[in-house]
């Protein structure tokens, strides 16, 4: 059937309510501006600048040569689940049965979607921070739930308080979704504040979904695994993945760990929508867990050096920036320019060819900030700081 204008209007009408309800990415225009521009330094990325350590890639290559090209168990390869279970026990002291409490997913993104669809009924509320990672509220909306936002502020290090959560708990509240170390702020949560949230969740009978994809990327502070808090394991869905720690974003391999009733429900959905996580990626993840620790430590040490350079630099050029102790983002305030974060990002791109992400893309409380990823070369960070300095001087009020 030939596609004509008339037909196209009709097609737009076939789009489901659900898909229409999803808010479009706030920075579509920004992507379009970027396309085709030369000489741009991008601090707008959300992934490591390293390629995957070669021994990890090689393990996958070898597995392909040996013919490991079939589906695996819906849960993921048993060896991988066993290694992951051991890794979590050794790192955080939490026990998960590799047979029933561990599910390998297509990145932590799938795990997040599964968690929502497995526990959220239409109209159920899920409490999360503002600002938050872009997929958080969309996943809740897709599950026909209602995202409820708790504002977090720079003065509090973008940490979330149990009291602020409790003020928003209603009879429809089903879960609290937290993601620390945080994208976009780089914030980490102190243990005491997590303990208070665990206490609240237990008392009010809430599930906690803890997205710990950046767990390995902390600087000078220990990451606290939410499930490791006393008693918390029973009401926690722990999400994680290999993307950030092992520089494996393109492999799409993540996981969910939770009590078996929840994993069983998530696996049911996973089985019908995905079947199993990509087999070569699972093989690579096995190698990462077996022999990747030194790579993680070396990359974290290197991010830390660049983190210090960018944070100091941003503060010096008049974009005050609180010290991010996790992930690989700096989240400076751009209020000195009087611009909205979207205006700032667009102008900075057009005039100085530096790409950053407007904080407003991550929620209302991100307004007045921009996200700068420092997983890029030191030379590029220095050059970006120079260009941004020129820009700020020009527009500072």
């Amino acid at each position, binding site marked *: 059937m030939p596609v004509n204008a008339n037909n196209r209007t009709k097609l737009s009408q076939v789009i489901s309510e659900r898909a229409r309800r999803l808010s479009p990415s706030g920075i579509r225009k920004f*992507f379009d501006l970027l396309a085709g521009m030369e000489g741009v330094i991008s601090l*707008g990325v*959300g992934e490591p600048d390293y390629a995957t350590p070669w021994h990890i890639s090689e393990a996958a290559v070898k597995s392909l040569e040996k013919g490991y090209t079939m589906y695996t168990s819906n849960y993921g390869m048993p060896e991988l689940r066993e290694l992951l279970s051991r890794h979590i026990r050794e790192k955080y002291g939490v026990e998960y049965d590799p047979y029933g409490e561990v599910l390998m997913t297509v990145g932590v993104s799938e795990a997040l979607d599964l968690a929502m669809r497995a526990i959220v009924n239409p109209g159920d509320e899920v409490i999360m921070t503002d600002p938050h990672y872009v997929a958080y509220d969309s996943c809740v909306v897709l599950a026909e739930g209602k995202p409820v936002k708790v504002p977090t502020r720079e003065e509090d290090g973008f940490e979330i308080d149990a009291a602020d959560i409790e003020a928003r708990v209603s009879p429809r509240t089903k879960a609290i979704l937290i993601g620390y170390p945080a994208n976009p702020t780089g914030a980490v949560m102190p243990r005491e504040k997590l303990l208070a949230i665990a206490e609240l969740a237990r008392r009010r009978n809430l599930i906690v979904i803890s997205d710990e994809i950046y767990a390995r990327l902390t600087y000078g502070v220990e990451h606290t695994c939410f499930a490791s808090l006393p008693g918390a394991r029973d009401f926690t869905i722990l999400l994680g993945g290999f993307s950030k720690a092992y520089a494996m974003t393109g492999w799409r391999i993540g996981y969910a760990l939770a009590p078996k009733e929840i994993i069983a429900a998530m696996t049911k959905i996973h089985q019908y929508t995905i079947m199993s996580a990509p087999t070569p990626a699972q093989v690579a993840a096995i190698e990462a867990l077996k022999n990747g620790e030194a790579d993680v430590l070396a990359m974290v040490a290197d991010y830390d*050096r*660049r983190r*210090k*350079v960018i944070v*100091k630099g941003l503060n010096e050029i008049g974009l005050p920036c609180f010290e991010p102790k996790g992930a690989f983002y700096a989240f400076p305030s751009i209020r000195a320019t009087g611009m909205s974060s979207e205006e700032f990002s667009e102008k900075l791109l057009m005039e100085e060819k530096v790409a950053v*992400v407007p904080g407003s893309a991550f929620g209302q409380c991100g307004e007045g900030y921009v996200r700068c990823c420092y997983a890029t070369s030191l030379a590029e960070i220095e050059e970006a700081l120079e260009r941004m300095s020129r820009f700020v001087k020009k527009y500072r009020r």
Partner: protein
Amino acid sequence: MLKDILKILEGDARVTPAQIATMTGLSQDEVVKVIRQAEKDRIILRYKTVINWEKVEADGAVWALIEVKVKPEPEAGFDAIATRIAQFPQVRSLYLASGTYDLLLVVSGETERKIADFVSENLSHLEGVQGTVTHFVLKRYKEDGEILDGGETSRRQPVVL
């Protein structure tokens, strides 16, 4: 602290003391002091640049790996002869190795002829040298940790949320 500074400089010799100070939390003066001392102690020997010369000139220097079998001296072992061989400016690197030969030389010269001359006129005449095997380098794939062909273009999407 010395190790941290050395690691940074080994990756990029052009990082300034001010940047190193930011990265390590030391003061700039301390960083300068540590670097000066390391230079004095010959821990830092030289600051060099890794260059892909093949992109600049089609027929540049010729390189060869030369295996040398030597008879160790009663007192000095391999050190005496190795120190002598190291004096030749053509010899860019020199290692004592385990296996079927003793010394491995990395040698550069303007032409193959010059390297051949070095082997026949200088090297093989040295007392203690029992035999040599010369391998000319045909193509360079990786230099000092850098893969020469590739890595020019970023494979990352410029913006990811």
